[in-house]
Every structure is written in C-alpha cells, then in structure tokens.
C-alpha cells in the first residue's frame, strides 16, 4: 500500500511538472505557433499524463486527456492549425486536467462531481469541434520551373541540380556552360532543362547579363559534397541547390538512424554528417532563416522547412532527422542524472553542515589558543573544506527563479484579458538562483505585486494611447544577484504613483497628519501601510488596501527589503532585495561590553571611529554628521542592555549599515570582523523580540544574536527628531 502511495506521490509531482511545462509551451505558442518542438512538448505532457493515469485506473483523466492528445497529434502532423482559440481551449484543458488529477488523488473512488463532468464534456466538444486545415504542399516552386525548356525531368535515381545564375555571372567571367561540361566528368546528365525566367523582352534585354537557369537530372555515384565542389567557383554568382536522388534517401535514413545519441545535435549538423546536406546548404538556409526573421519580425521558419523549400533535401530525410533529434532528446532527458530528494533530508544535511561550521570554528579557536603549529595547517585545510562543503550544500537547495517567473505569464495573460488591457510580460534573469525555501515564500508577494501592476499600474489601452504610450503595456520581471543578495524587480510602464492621492488617502485613514512634511520616498512607502488603497473601486484583483502591508511583512520575514520607486505617468518599479539563503550568512561580528552581535555582512557599509574629531556628534538627538550626511545612530549596548556601567568612556566604533535607501550607525565597543554565521531560528517565545532575527552559536560555545538591521534602522530613525531641525541647527 505504501508503495502505491509513493507511486501516487510521484505521479502527482510529475503531472504537476508536466502541466507547468505544458502551460509554458502553450503560452510561447501564442507567439510562435509553428514551433514544432513546443507543440511536441504540449503533446508529450498530455500523452504522459494519460499513460500514467491509465496505470492508476483514473479513467476520467484518461478519457479527457485522450481527447486533448488526439487533437494535439493532429496539430503535430499539421492536420490542424494552432490558433489563439485552440491555445485558449488547451489552456483550459490544462486547468481541467489539474483539477481532475486533484480529484482523483484526494477522493480516489468517488464519482466525478457533475461540474467537472460538465466542464470535461464541454472542453472535449471544443477540442474536437474546430475546423481542420490541410497543409499545402510546396509545389509552387517546381511548377514554376517547368516551362520553356520543355519536358519533365525524371528524377528517380538521379540527383536533381538546380542552378540559378545571377545576372552578373557572365560579367564576372563565369561561363555556366563550362560548369555543366565539367559536371559531365562526374557522371551522366540524364536530362537538362534550360530556363530563362528573368529575361526581359526586346531592348531591355542585356546580352551581357546572365539570365540562365538550369535544372539538371544527374546520375552519379559521387557524394553531394563532390558534386557541390564542381560549382565551387560559381557559388558567389549562382544559387545552387542539389537534391539527392530518391534512391539515396533510404541510405540517409539509415545513416540518421545509426547516429549516436550521446548528445543532442542540431538538425543541420545531423544532415551534414550523413551527407544529405553540405555545410553550404545549411549556411544558406540559416541565412534565409535570419533574413525572414528580420524582415517580418516573425520567428523564423524551422530550418527543416526552409531546406525542403530550397530543394536541397527531401522531406522524409528532414522528418527522420527531426524524429531522431527528438528521440535523442528524450533519451537524454530520461537518462539525466536527477535524483528526487526529500526536502527534509536536504534540510537535515544543511543543519549538519551548519553544526560542522560551528565546530570547525571551535576547533580553530582551540588550535589557536594552544598554539599548535602543526595542527594549524590541518585546521586551515579543513576550514577550506568546510566552507566549500557549506557552499555546495547550500547550492543543493538553489533553484532558478525562472520557473517561478514563468508561472506569472499565465497570470498576466488571464488578468489582462479580464481587464481588457493588452499587457506583455518581459522576463529577464530567470537563470538567477536562490534558495528553494526563499523561492517558495516569495511566490505570494510576487503574485500580489504583479497583480497590482496589472490592475493599478498599467492603464487601459485607450488611456495609454491618449497619453502617447503604445497601447500594449509592459510589465518587466527581472532578477539579478548583487552582493550576496538577489534583487527582484517588478517594473511597469503604467501610470505611476500619485503622491497627492496617497497623501489624501493616508490623511483620511489617519495614518499621517495633514502637516506631515514627508519626502516623496516616504510617501511611496505609505503604500505598504495597512489599509491604504488609492484605487477608487476595489476589483476582485486588488484595491482593498490589504496586501501591500502583507507583502512587506512576508518579505521582511525573509530578511529582505522592499522598495518602491515611481514616476507619475512613467511607471512604477518595485525592488525586492532578498538574502540568497536562510541558513548560513556571512556575518560581521561586533561586541558591546557584554554581548556579541552579528550584522549581515552585506548590509555593512563602513566602520568609523566614534570620535568627535572624526565627525560631528549630537549626543542629544542621536545623530552624527558623516561627511555632511545625517546619520541616526543607536548604541547597541544601550538598546539591548540598558547598560549602567557609566564608568570610563571607552573607545567606540560606529558600524554604518544600510538597508535599501536607509542608513544608520550602530555604536559598538568592539569590532570582531567577518564570521561565518549559521542562523539558528529563535523559538516561539522570542518571536516578538524587536531588533533580533536569530541567533548563532560561536566557536567558544557562546551565543551571538543576529541583528534585524531593517528594524533597528527604523528604531534609530525614530530615536531622533526630524532632519529639518538638524538642518536649522
């Protein structure tokens, strides 16, 4: 039974992954409907889910996915065109499949609820009901070429060579006839047609320009490469297409089949290897692909299609190559060395690594204390190993943020449809990695922020056009690493924040007084206060004034910060700053008389001496003047201990920390330097403790507290009066 359950869990996970990739694929099909690879991946998702559901006897899923699969099969074979309508139906199908799976997993034997039944029936109808379109054989080219020279060319067993000389060929000293004569040395010309398709009438005709095209059926045992080399000198002045004889096709197919599967090759590469194409053929086709991409701004045609259109290779050969490529991909994917690991086991490992880091620190301390010179070397090399183990262990939990990002493509699509806006989501930096636990927790805040951008940020197309913006709004999701942090930005080119509205609302809600005197940045930050929404009417998406405060709380719970920047009429950018991991950080250790504290190193800006000669200090209002900048400060000893030992004034240092835009100074007695800090979460009892986010065990067994820099900066700012007073003073 438990084995069965385990299998079910795997099924659930796999289906979820498949459905996610299916959604991605469908969304990308909207922009490139001809991408056969993407169509295949949609097909595979449905196909695999159908297969596994069959194993578990989930007949409802099988029945439904079967329909979707057969429609996709038709699309794959080109019997049905993929259009926006079909994509939308398929997206619904994906959702329904997810619901069906959930139903089957949770209530194994219960019959299908009627609404699912109905939805399923409706979608099946939509899936099968649409029109079918046939593919058009690309025969225009061939028929165009039959004309003046007369006579059909029989191609069986012959190479079909098409030579289109360009008008400058004669002037450049080419004599097309000589190439044909030379060709005869390689084999026998079975048939030749001379064409003058581009030759103008009468006086227009320039006898020094070349208008000659030839179609040659050529029998030879030479390889394609050899035949092409006949025309090597003409290649600048002549379009040469060499189609292998049908009799060769089988040979190519066999060769393709026998190609090794150790890595995925590109289609052109494969065909060149079996000799069906020459490198020149591929280059020309690639060039054509690029040209068409540039000229109509559309994603280019698949290379295979271009090759067939250029008459350099038969369609079956290309198809076989594609099939082979697909097989190789699948085989490699199946072989890919992934191990599914229970996340808790990984967590355990990371905990242990944390302990290891601590005990290695303890060992170093002892080695140092006893001055064991030879043990020192060993300790040092172990230290190096421990830190690389630490990094590797943490990397295990690192995942790319791209997957999280691409889930929002669906959200953007659906929401923009619902709101009647056209919005494009641009994703960049999807390969940026961060801890899986962080990724999981950032999902909801991101969702909220994106919905806000879609709903409040981007205006309706009419409004946009009215202010001279393109009708299509853009929401950008960007991620990048910055000094041990990951930065995630959500930017829109919408209306931006309206300061007056925010202030008015905040005054109405009693958040601020009318004579607030807030800076623009501070006004923006009001957005994150509870109960503030400037949207006149709440929609079902956003605007109820709950959310932004929750977003801020969630992000701060991850030791992150969130900032907002906006320009009215131009757009809004929200920047989230998150630590890469929640387990181990590089810390900066400082000490007061009694205790030691850890400040996350990435937040430390600089250290200066707390000396009236160095900088102006106002002991009453708790600020220092750091090179003309007002810096509120906080005595950590006072803040945490209410230290009473007012004995001799000791030498003090100021650690300047920054969090987002804010800076503050922490006044401490000792600076201990960098320290690898394993974060131990605080128990429930200490949950509400201000200024502390965690603790760590030091090598000597003492405990150091990890400071909540963000919170402390706020405290330091509150501790002093407004900067306006300072400036007057």
């Amino acid at each position, binding site marked *: 039974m438990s084995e069965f359950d385990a299998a079910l869990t795997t099924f659930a996970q796999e289906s979820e992954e498949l459905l996610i990739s299916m959604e991605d694929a469908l969304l990308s099909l909207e922009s490139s409907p001809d991408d056969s690879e993407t169509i295949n991946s949609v097909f595979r998702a449905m196909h695999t889910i159908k297969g596994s559901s069959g194993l578990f006897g989930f007949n409802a899923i099988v029945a439904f996915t079967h329909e979707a699969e057969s429609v996709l099969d038709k699309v794959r074979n080109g019997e049905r065109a993929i259009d926006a309508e079909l994509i939308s139906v398929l997206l619904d199908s994906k959702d329904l499949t997810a619901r069906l799976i959930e139903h089957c997993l949770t209530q194994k034997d219960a019959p299908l609820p009627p609404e699912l039944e109905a939805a399923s029936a409706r979608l099946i109808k939509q899936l099968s009901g649409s029109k079918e379109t046939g593919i058009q054989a690309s025969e225009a080219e061939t028929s165009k070429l039959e004309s*003046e020279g007369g*006579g059909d060319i029989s191609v069986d067993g012959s190479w079909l060579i098409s030579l289109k000389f360009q008008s400058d060929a004669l*002037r450049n000293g080419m*004599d097309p*006839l000589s190439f*044909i004569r030379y060709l005869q040395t390689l084999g026998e010309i079975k048939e030749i047609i001379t064409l*003058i398709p581009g*030759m103008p009438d009468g006086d227009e005709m320039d*006898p020094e320009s070349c*208008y000659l095209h030839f179609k040659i059926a050529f029998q030879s045992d030479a390889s394609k490469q050899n035949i092409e080399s006949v025309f090597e000198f003409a290649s600048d002045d002549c379009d040469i297409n060499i189609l292998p004889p049908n009799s060769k096709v089988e040979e190519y197919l066999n060769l393709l089949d026998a190609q090794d599967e150790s890595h995925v090759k590109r289609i052109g590469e494969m065909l060149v290897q079996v000799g069906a194409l020459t490198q020149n053929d591929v280059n020309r086709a690639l060039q054509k692909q690029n040209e068409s991409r540039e000229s109509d701004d559309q994603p280019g045609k698949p290379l295979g299609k271009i090759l067939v259109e250029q008459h350099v290779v038969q369609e079956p050969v290309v198809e076989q190559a594609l099939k082979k490529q697909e097989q190789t991909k699948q085989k490699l994917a199946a072989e890919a060395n992934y191990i599914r690991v229970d996340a808790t086991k990984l967590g355990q490992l990371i905990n242990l690594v944390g302990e290891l880091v601590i005990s290695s620190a303890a060992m170093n301390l002892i080695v140092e204390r006893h001055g064991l010179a030879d043990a020192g070397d060993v300790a040092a090399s172990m230290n190096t190993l421990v830190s690389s183990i630490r990094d590797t262990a943490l990397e295990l939990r690192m995942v790319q943020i791209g997957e999280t990002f691409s889930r929002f493509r669906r959200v953007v699509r659906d929401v923009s449809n619902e709101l009647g806006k056209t919005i494009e989501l641009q994703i960049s930096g999807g390969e940026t990695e961060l801890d899986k636990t962080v990724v999981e927790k950032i999902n909801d805040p991101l969702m909220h922020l994106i919905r806000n951008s879609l709903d409040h940020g981007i205006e309706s197309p009419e409004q946009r056009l009215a202010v001279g913006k393109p009708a299509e709004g853009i929401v950008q999701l960007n991620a990048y690493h910055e000094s041990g942090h990951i930065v995630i930005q959500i930017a829109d080119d919408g209306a931006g924040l309206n300061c007056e509205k925010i202030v008015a609302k905040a005054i109405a809600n009693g958040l601020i007084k009318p004579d607030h005197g807030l800076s623009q940045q501070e006004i923006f930050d009001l957005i994150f206060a509870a109960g503030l929404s400037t949207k006149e009417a709440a929609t079902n998406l956003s605007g109820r004034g709950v959310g932004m405060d929750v977003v801020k709380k969630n992000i701060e719970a991850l030791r992150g910060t969130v900032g907002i920047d906006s320009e009215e009429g131009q757009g809004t950018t929200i920047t989230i700053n998150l630590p890469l991991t929640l387990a181990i950080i590089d810390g900066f250790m400082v000490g007061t008389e009694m205790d030691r504290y850890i400040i996350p190193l990435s937040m430390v800006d600089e250290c200066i001496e707390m000396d009236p000669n160095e900088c102006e200090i106002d002991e009453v209002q708790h600020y220092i003047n750091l090179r003309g900048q007002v810096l509120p400060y906080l005595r950590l000893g006072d803040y945490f201990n209410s230290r009473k030992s007012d004995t001799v004034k000791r030498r003090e240092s100021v650690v300047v920390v920054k969090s987002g835009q804010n800076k503050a100074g922490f006044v401490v007695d000792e600076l201990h330097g960098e320290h690898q800090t394993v974060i131990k979460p605080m128990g429930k009892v200490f949950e509400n403790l201000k200024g502390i986010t965690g603790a760590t065990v030091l090598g000597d067994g003492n405990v150091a507290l990890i400071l909540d820099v963000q919170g402390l900066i706020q405290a330091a700012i509150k501790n002093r009066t407004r900067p306006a007073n300072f400036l007057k003073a």
Partner: protein
Amino acid sequence: MSIEVKQDKKGSIRLAIQDEMTIYTALQQKKLLFSHLISAKTLQIDLAGVSEIDSAGLQLLLFLKREAGHHNIKLSLIQHSQAVLDVMELLNLSKYFGDPIVISADRKSS
C-alpha cells in the same frame, strides 16, 4: 562586319554570322540581330561561321527564339557549326529550337 546579310526581300531575311558568339560579341550581335528580327517576317540565321559559342551566345539565341515567338516571326537556325551543335547537344536544346540539324559526314566520323 561580323554579320552578313545574305538575302533581304519581302520581309524574308537570311543572315550569316561570321564570328564567335561570346560575351565579347554579344552586345553588338544582339543589337543587329534584334533589329533585323523585328523588321522581318521570316528570319534565317546561318550559324556555319560561328567558330565559338559560350553562355552569352547561347542566351542570345534563346532570346531571339523567344522574341520571334512573341512577334510571330518565323525564325530558323541553319547550318549549325560544330561549336553550336555541341552546346545544343549538351543542353538538349535542339528540340526547343526545332530546326532540322544536318549532321555532316565529318561529324559522324568524329
């Protein structure tokens, strides 16, 4: 003069080309041949004197044949020289021009 007018009466013209037909002569030959072509009802071109013919020359013949068709002029090529015959054979064009080709005795033996 590389092109000799052998006969010109009642719109029936017979020309003899006494030169190579190559890229070097094509421009001049085209001008002359074309002007004769459109003033004639039937045009015979004697190719016996064509010592050499290349792609440009061949292209010119193809051009004349097509123009003749457009203008309803009867164009025939006669007395093909060996060089012309070789090209016609290489490109399998004799059917297109549709002129009877006299295979001379020395060609047979060669």
